[in-house]
């Protein structure tokens, strides 16, 4: 045990004194979390303070067209800019093409007639929405549906106004009727502890995933140190001493595990304290600190086993690092870290559980987002530890076969 402690001490001194390792292991993941949390706030949020800018061109210049633009302007999700008189469709198209606006709404002549008559099915829609093709599809759908909803509401209102007397005759209040069909759907968030619904924020949804993603980059220092020790002879020297291979490996694994914990702690601290200071949403750690510690431990062990297997299987440090980085990115993409699995095609959703980070992310979300406890993460922990054992066994076989 004493020898293992010395190995851990030596590894930590080395890392602490090597500013490049320190940057790769601690600074870069925390900076990554910071950047991703702040920049991707809008991706998950329907309650964002960010307003999508829409250029509105009113070619109809009617009461109805002005009512629609006004209604959209009041909506939380939009910031509608009315185009000056005389602005053409071509000009709107150009504004979108040049990235000035992501959306341009054109209300053509004839919109008023369409708005007034709920039964009208025009040959050509008097409303056109120009969309910047770089806009993400979910965002496009949100904007499109919101405009459609406003149009429908105004058309219904016009219809009800026209038939107000008839409605009154049958005992229906027009405003009450309109209000009843416009009632918003209330989302109730389901948490393990059944506490009052709290709306999850972007950081809460994205930080756990990016923590898991970053932890797998432990493959870089593992490969780097593995090949350095192999090439400079220290590995050989240690093996020539009365030192069991298990002691050398245990010392390294414990060190990397400690680094994984430090990494995770730094990233959580950034998500909790720094992101809100810079205008982002803060995160909560859930209701089970022990559960959080356990799932981070399991992710760390899995990531270390992955790094070890990649290192011993590669012919050079460059190859190990390149292969490790690309593999982590692919696994993260498959596992739903980069793109939520629910927006993936069915096939991709089916294979997502085949990705190691998927289980880490699910465990982290169980604890941090769904307020789960240790019992909730047992399946994820089991899979992470079992796959880690398999990878370590494979690494041991490769070491034996390659006589490293």
């Amino acid at each position, binding site marked *: 045990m*004493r020898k293992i402690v010395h190995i851990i001490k030596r590894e930590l*001194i*080395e890392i602490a004194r090597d500013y490049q390792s320190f940057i790769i292991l601690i600074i870069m993941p925390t900076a990554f979390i910071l950047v991703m949390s702040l920049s991707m706030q809008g991706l998950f949020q329907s309650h964002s303070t960010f307003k999508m800018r829409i250029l509105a061109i009113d070619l109809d210049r009617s009461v109805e067209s002005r009512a629609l633009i006004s209604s959209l302007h009041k909506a939380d999700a939009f910031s509608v800019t009315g185009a000056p008189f005389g602005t053409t469709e071509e000009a709107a198209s150009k504004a979108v093409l040049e990235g000035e606006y992501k959306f341009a709404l054109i209300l053509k002549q004839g919109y008023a007639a369409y708005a007034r008559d709920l039964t009208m099915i025009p040959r050509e829609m008097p409303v056109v929405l120009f969309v910047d093709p770089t806009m993400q599809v979910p965002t496009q759908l949100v904007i499109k549906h919101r405009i459609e909803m406003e149009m429908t509401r105004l058309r219904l209102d016009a219809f009800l106004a026209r038939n107000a007397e008839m409605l009154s005759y049958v005992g229906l209040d027009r405003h009450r009727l309109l209000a009843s069909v416009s009632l918003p759907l209330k989302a109730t968030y389901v948490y393990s502890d059944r506490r009052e619904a709290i709306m999850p924020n972007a950081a809460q949804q994205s930080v756990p995933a990016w923590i898991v993603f970053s932890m797998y980059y432990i493959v870089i220092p593992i490969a780097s140190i593995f090949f350095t020790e192999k090439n400079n*002879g*220290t590995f050989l020297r240690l093996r020539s001493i009365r030192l069991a291979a298990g002691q050398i490996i245990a010392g390294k694994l414990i060190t990397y595990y400690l680094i994984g914990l430090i990494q995770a702690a730094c990233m959580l601290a950034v998500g909790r304290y720094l992101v809100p200071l810079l205008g982002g949403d803060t995160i909560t750690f859930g209701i089970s600190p022990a559960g959080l510690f356990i799932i981070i431990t399991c992710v760390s062990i899995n990531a270390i086993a992955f790094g070890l297997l990649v290192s011993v299987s590669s012919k050079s440090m460059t190859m190990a690092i390149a292969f490790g980085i690309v593999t982590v990115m692919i696994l993260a993409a498959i596992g739903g870290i980069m793109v939520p699995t629910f927006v993936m095609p069915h096939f991709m959703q089916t294979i997502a559980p085949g990705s190691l980070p998927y289980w880490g992310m699910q465990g982290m979300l169980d604890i941090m987002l769904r307020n789960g406890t240790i019992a909730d993460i047992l399946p994820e922990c089991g899979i992470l530890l079992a796959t880690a054992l398999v990878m370590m066994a494979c690494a041991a076989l490769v070491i034996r076969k390659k006589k490293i």
Partner: protein
Amino acid sequence: MIRIEQLRKTYDDVVALAGIDLSIRKGAITGLLGPNGAGKTTLVSILTGILKKDSGRVLINGFDLDRDLPAIKSISSIVPQSLALYPSLTIHENLEFFGAMYGYRGALLRERISFAVDVTSLGPFLTKRAGKASGGIQRRLNLAIGLLNDPEILYLDEPTVGVDAQSRAYILEMIQRINRDRGTTIIYTSHYISEIEQIAEDVVIIDHGAILLCDSMENVIGGGSGLALQVSAPPEALEDFPAIPGLTRKGNCFHLKRNDLFYDNVIAIMTSFRDRGIEIERMQINMSLLEDVYLDLTQRELRDED
């Protein structure tokens, strides 16, 4: 003493050691020579327990490699060709770490470090980061780490590669001192044949996994190497000839050994000849070089490793 019998090792289809027999004297410096891929590293790796042999028997100072590997590891040490140390640790931290790996602690660890530092004269550099030390100091640290367990057998693989002439001379002198003062058996591998010639008492030449030569340096480079002088002089002039280091006489023939072929000795001989009226009839310098022997045995074609 190291006794090797029918030692064999193969890597897949490649025969690294083809059933070699070899004896290495206890307390001697033995030079191990061979081209790239000859089997030197495999041999040393097996002797230090890093590699497993396929077959054969190895006895090291009475310990059987198959049964007593821990004991063998505790009495031997390897200094690899590469700088097997941690650059970001100080020289003292490196020694402390490897000392701890040997299982030393407390006063014993401090004593072992002190010993290794004294032998390699690393005292003034202990707080310096190993990676920032000069090549010569790094080489000495590499050697110092190998001395921490005060080994009975020390395997040195190219210990002077990449250092300047002064550092090389210092390291060679240090190795001789370790051998002389502590009776350490030293197996010395180098591509600098002159180094082997300078410090080794025995020489082993290995190629294609077979031992081509195993003999004393004296026998290999020939006892006749040096300066041979045939003189004409009355017998009484040759009597009471002054003793000069390395000089022997048989009748009218003098021989100054190669290792004593220094300017001062030659001048002393010539002065004695002049004072005694001795005339030189024939003078010849015989130089049998280890390099010639080595190249003759291993052939002269290039040996590029695959």
